[in-house]
């Protein structure tokens, strides 16, 4: 006795009038707008529709009906890219996402019921999340959850409702009232069925499946199954290949010289979308690039290194705002493009005892601001290096807020390899190291130094301890130095050395 495998639950999210929505989301609110292709109107906004413009009208008819109609040509590649961007963002909700052109994305919703909650409630939560992400990406979508992707797609595209749910095994019943066009059958089959009076999905389901299979082959058998709510086809997973970038067209030529606010507003929208797409892939941006396209030509690029990989658009916005506000551009800005240049997995945040998430966020914002203004190399932590040459005895490392405090303990089951112990710092090192060292002239009698002249100022030597000989690196740049700790009148303690190569004295540090 074999148990039949349950059909996959699929969430379909369809974006009605995707070309129109895509055009509207990348520009400020427009008046009458229509998307046209080959002289025919394909999609129109409500304002134009109220004026009498209908999909299918010729461009001449449309302009006659609505004099102020703005026309946007259909851009299938851009529409496809927008759909892929939406799919990328939806990856944060489900591991399997399929792009279903021209206007839909499918998610594997089978796992939703594993959350332990009531399956219907779990699917409702998934739908809520999908609608939220869809809105964040600038689209208004319609959602259906059903058995199999064909059923879910038909419901999402053709019920006209924002949400539709067909409970497991109920697909056929929910589909039955839809017109036959909802199944998007091949033209020949649809024409024949219409000719014999089959107008709804329910009517098709009532036909014998064998007859359809004999007449139309595999396509007929599949249509019969689909009409009965059966679609076992698996999803074809979508895998994004490039880092995300989003564009915004500033209609009306907004100049940042007079006011940066519109540009910042547009940058915020872009940041929200890029962050949503990155989050779907489990990545965080570590470097962004904002390109401002100027009117009529030219562009300004802003590189924005971030303190750590992040998908927090609000945190990105702080340095973005500062950089944009500080710009002096020769021309108005006509478009923006925000791209992720570098991304990495978002590391798990290791908070120190007493740290709280808001501290980590405040730190991230502060580091991003500093990094954007001063440059990444200006911020660092340090670690000891096993070198004898004093100026090489440490190296700069990235500052990690999660670095454990001295009192923190490593979890024994963490599996992380223990870090090699840092070399102990040598004793008696000055708190300030001068780079480059300053020349020192010594005076004295009988081989005893009594005065050191530093920067032209003679200072009496009160005490002198040393030498400590440091030498080595014969394979690279050999050095040989005798260091002395000297207390100087009117200055304090200094660290000087005699260069073994030429005998000259140098002030290398101060015990401040």
């Amino acid at each position: 006795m074999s148990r039949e495998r349950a059909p996959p639950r699929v969430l379909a999210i369809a974006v009605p009038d995707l070309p129109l929505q895509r055009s509207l989301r990348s520009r400020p609110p427009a008046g009458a707008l229509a998307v046209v292709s080959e002289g025919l109107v394909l999609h129109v906004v409500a304002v134009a529709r109220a004026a009498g413009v209908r999909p299918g009208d010729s461009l001449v008819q449309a302009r006659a009906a609505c004099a102020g109609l703005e026309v946007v040509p259909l851009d299938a590649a851009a529409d496809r890219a927008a759909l892929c961007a939406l799919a990328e963002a939806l990856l944060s909700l489900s591991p399997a996402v399929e792009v279903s052109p021209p206007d839909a994305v499918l998610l594997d919703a089978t796992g939703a019921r594993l959350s332990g909650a009531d399956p219907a409630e779990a699917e409702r939560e998934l739908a809520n999340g999908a609608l939220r992400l869809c809105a964040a990406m600038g689209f208004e979508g319609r959602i259906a959850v059903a058995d199999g992707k064909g059923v879910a797609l038909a419901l999402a595209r053709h019920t006209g409702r924002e949400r539709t749910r067909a409970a497991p095994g109920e697909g056929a019943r929910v589909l039955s009232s839809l017109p036959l066009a909802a199944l998007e059958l091949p033209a020949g089959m649809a024409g024949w069925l219409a000719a014999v009076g089959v107008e709804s999905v329910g009517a098709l389901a009532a036909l014998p499946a064998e007859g359809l299979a004999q007449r139309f082959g595999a396509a007929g058998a599949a249509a019969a199954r689909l009409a009965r709510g059966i679609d076992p086809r698996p999803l074809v997973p979508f895998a994004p290949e490039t880092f995300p970038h989003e564009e915004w067209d500033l209609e009306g030529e907004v100049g940042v010289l007079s006011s940066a606010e519109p540009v910042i507003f547009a940058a915020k929208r872009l940041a929200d979308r890029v962050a949503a797409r990155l989050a779907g892939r489990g990545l965080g941006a570590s470097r962004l690039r904002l390109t401002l396209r100027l009117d009529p030509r030219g562009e300004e690029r802003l590189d924005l290194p971030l303190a750590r990989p992040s998908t927090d658009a609000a945190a990105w916005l702080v340095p973005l705002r500062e950089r944009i506000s500080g710009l002096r551009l020769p021309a108005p800005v006509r478009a923006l493009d925000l791209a992720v240049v570098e991304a990495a997995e978002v590391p798990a945040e290791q908070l120190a005892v007493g740290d709280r998430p808001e501290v980590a966020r405040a730190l991230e914002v502060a580091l991003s601001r500093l990094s954007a203004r001063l440059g990444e190399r200006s911020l660092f932590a340090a670690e000891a290096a096993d070198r004898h040459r004093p100026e090489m005895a440490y190296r700069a490392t990235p500052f990690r807020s999660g670095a454990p405090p001295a009192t923190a303990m490593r979890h024994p089951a963490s599996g992380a390899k223990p870090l090699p112990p840092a070399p102990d710092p040598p004793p008696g090192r000055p708190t300030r190291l001068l780079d480059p060292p300053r020349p020192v002239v010594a005076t004295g009698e009988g081989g005893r130094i009594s005065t050191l002249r530093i920067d032209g100022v003679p200072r009496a030597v009160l005490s002198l301890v040393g030498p400590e000989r440091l030498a080595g690196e014969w394979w690279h740049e050999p050095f040989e130095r005798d260091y002395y700790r000297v207390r100087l009148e009117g200055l304090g303690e200094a660290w000087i050395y005699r260069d073994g190569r030429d005998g000259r004295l140098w002030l290398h540090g101060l015990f401040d």
Partner: protein
Amino acid sequence: MGATTRQQEILEELRRQIRRLEHRPARREGLLSCGRPEVDALLPGGGFPRGSLCELRGGPASGKTGLALAALCQAQSEGGLAAFVDGPGELYPPAASSLGVNLSRLLFVRPGHIPRGGARDAALPGLWAAEVLLGSGAFSAVAVDVSLSGLSSARAEPLLRRLRTAAEKGGTVALLLCRPGAPTIPAAVRIDLDAVRLRPSLRIAPDEESPHVA
């Protein structure tokens, strides 16, 4: 009197709620020990007051950097983060480590970029960085070593007041390292370090503008 206290409590509670709504770190209060009992004994209350500017004034080898590092070490030992705005780029990490500072939790900021005004404006990037760090609330203590010698008193005053406001906002101890002759700093506490004698001497100098020092 009682009504005033009650109003202050309500105001403080409202501030706390606003910080929570803005997801900002809670403001630290109280004192930060400087890590050296002999200095703590001289400080009012026994430590550096959080949310204020503290000035460490002394010559190039007077011990002010060591004192600042000891305070940063103390801040770290309480689980906090510390930062050092190193304008001249002279702080030597191995020395900081030998004084007990956890280098992995010490942020070095070396603003090497010189702005358009040249040497006259050389202090500005460092002061801006200090303001960002102090106001963030993410750091327990921030040492600021930025030469103010190129700034006139009139120019330095508003910049230093901004630092003080940022320190108050973040509840952070700001340790300003100054050379003799630098402009007056609106600090809550000033420590003069004198290395002319064999041992640096310490003197607490109450600031006229500050209400914190009796």
